């Protein structure tokens, strides 16, 4: 049995760990709320834009440029920091699965890693990484990051580097559930956006011209899709961390309860032992 002193020391250590996990949980909860608000604020924009893109792109298919290389770009969005349960592991597993699927279709998967965890993963596994981005800013979902990713995708897609580009991010479903999601960004799929009652392109007076407007719309659409993925990822990360830290705090509480019990037992055992000694000594004297 551990000595009383050792148990006391462990209790102190678990308590300070618990303080840290509790604080992290609170911080994540606050950040989650902010991220959720941002997600909600983006909705009107994303919806209007996809309606607009749907009506303009209706019936059109966007093809990769002729002679495009048989490669596909997968942008994997993970977090920079750990302590968020299985969040990054799930994402990276999903990324590898999608990459295997691509290989079966004869397309070489190429990765763009967003977040330190993805960068480390692909360095370790030796996946072909064409770019990386470690954020170091308090917010992951910034327009600046979305724009630079979208520009990169569009330029390299147009240059014929890739057959397709996609993002893998964690979809925020609730504070308790986040699901890794694979979303194809380019070529833009017009079919998925055409909803009932959408006006055809002929119903608009278009300036300067349809041909000139199309790239602008596609650019905005891609930016918006990437931004949305970043927002979802940010909310998911905080939700995952909050859940992980909540259970860590609970585990710490359990451990403290168990150790306290053990400590009391050890103390009692010590007292009993001393009493026995005294009684034994007294008996020896009186005998």
């Amino acid at each position, binding site marked *: 049995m551990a000595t009383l002193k050792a148990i006391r020391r462990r209790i102190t250590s678990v308590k300070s760990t618990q303080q840290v996990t509790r604080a992290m949980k609170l911080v994540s909860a606050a950040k989650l709320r902010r991220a959720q608000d941002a997600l909600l604020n983006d909705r*009107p924009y994303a919806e209007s834009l996809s309606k607009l893109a749907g009506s303009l792109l209706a019936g059109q298919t966007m093809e990769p440029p002729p002679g495009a290389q048989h490669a596909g770009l997968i942008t994997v969005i993970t977090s920079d920091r750990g302590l968020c349960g299985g969040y990054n592991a799930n994402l990276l597993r999903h990324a590898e699965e999608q990459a295997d699927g691509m290989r079966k279709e004869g397309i070489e998967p190429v990765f763009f890693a967003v977040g330190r965890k993805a960068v480390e993963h692909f360095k370790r596994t030796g996946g072909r990484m064409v770019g990386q981005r470690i954020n170091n800013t308090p917010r992951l979902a910034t*327009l600046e990051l979305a724009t630079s990713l979208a520009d990169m995708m569009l330029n390299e897609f147009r240059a014929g580097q890739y057959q397709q580009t996609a993002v893998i991010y964690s979809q925020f479903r609730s504070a308790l559930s986040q699901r890794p999601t694979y979303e194809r960004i380019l070529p833009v799929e017009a079919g998925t956006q055409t909803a009932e009652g959408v*006006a055809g392109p002929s119903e*608009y007076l*278009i*300036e*300067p011209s349809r041909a000139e*407007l199309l790239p602008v719309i596609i650019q905005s659409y891609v*930016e918006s899709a990437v*931004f949305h993925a970043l927002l979802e990822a940010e909310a998911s990360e905080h939700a995952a961390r909050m859940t992980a830290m909540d259970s860590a705090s609970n585990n710490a509480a359990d451990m403290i309860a168990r150790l306290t019990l053990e400590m009391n037992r050890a103390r009692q055992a010590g007292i009993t032992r001393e009493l026995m000694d005294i009684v034994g000594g007294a008996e020896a004297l009186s005998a």
Partner: protein
Amino acid sequence: MADAALPFKLITPTGVVFDGAVAEVTAVNPLGEFGVLPQHINYLTSLVPCVVAVKLEDSSYRLFVVSGGLAEVKDGVMTVLASTAEPAETLSDGEALSKGVVAAEEQLHNLSFYEPGYPSALKAVQLARARQRAREARSAAR
């Protein structure tokens, strides 16, 4: 229908900036400035970085600096989708804005038309000028 109003929405990825009935909206597309009055025909255009001037029904103006985007009129409802929109009231003071214009112009000067950074540098100049214009219009209105 002289009393008809134009329902107008200005939406950015970070939220709805303006939503209400207005008398007129003016903005700038690649061909130049255009205005939209109530009952406009269905219309679709892109915006360059510019000042979106919203004339309210009491003839007062609200100005927004947008960094480019799309404008749509559909069934008499106008929607502007902009990547960013700053209300003129939140702009910093005039001196900082003119410095911004100078810096942006300098960057543009150092680039040739064929360099990949040219379009974004051009946009930056347009945006800086639009900010300055909005700021001037605001102080003139006072």
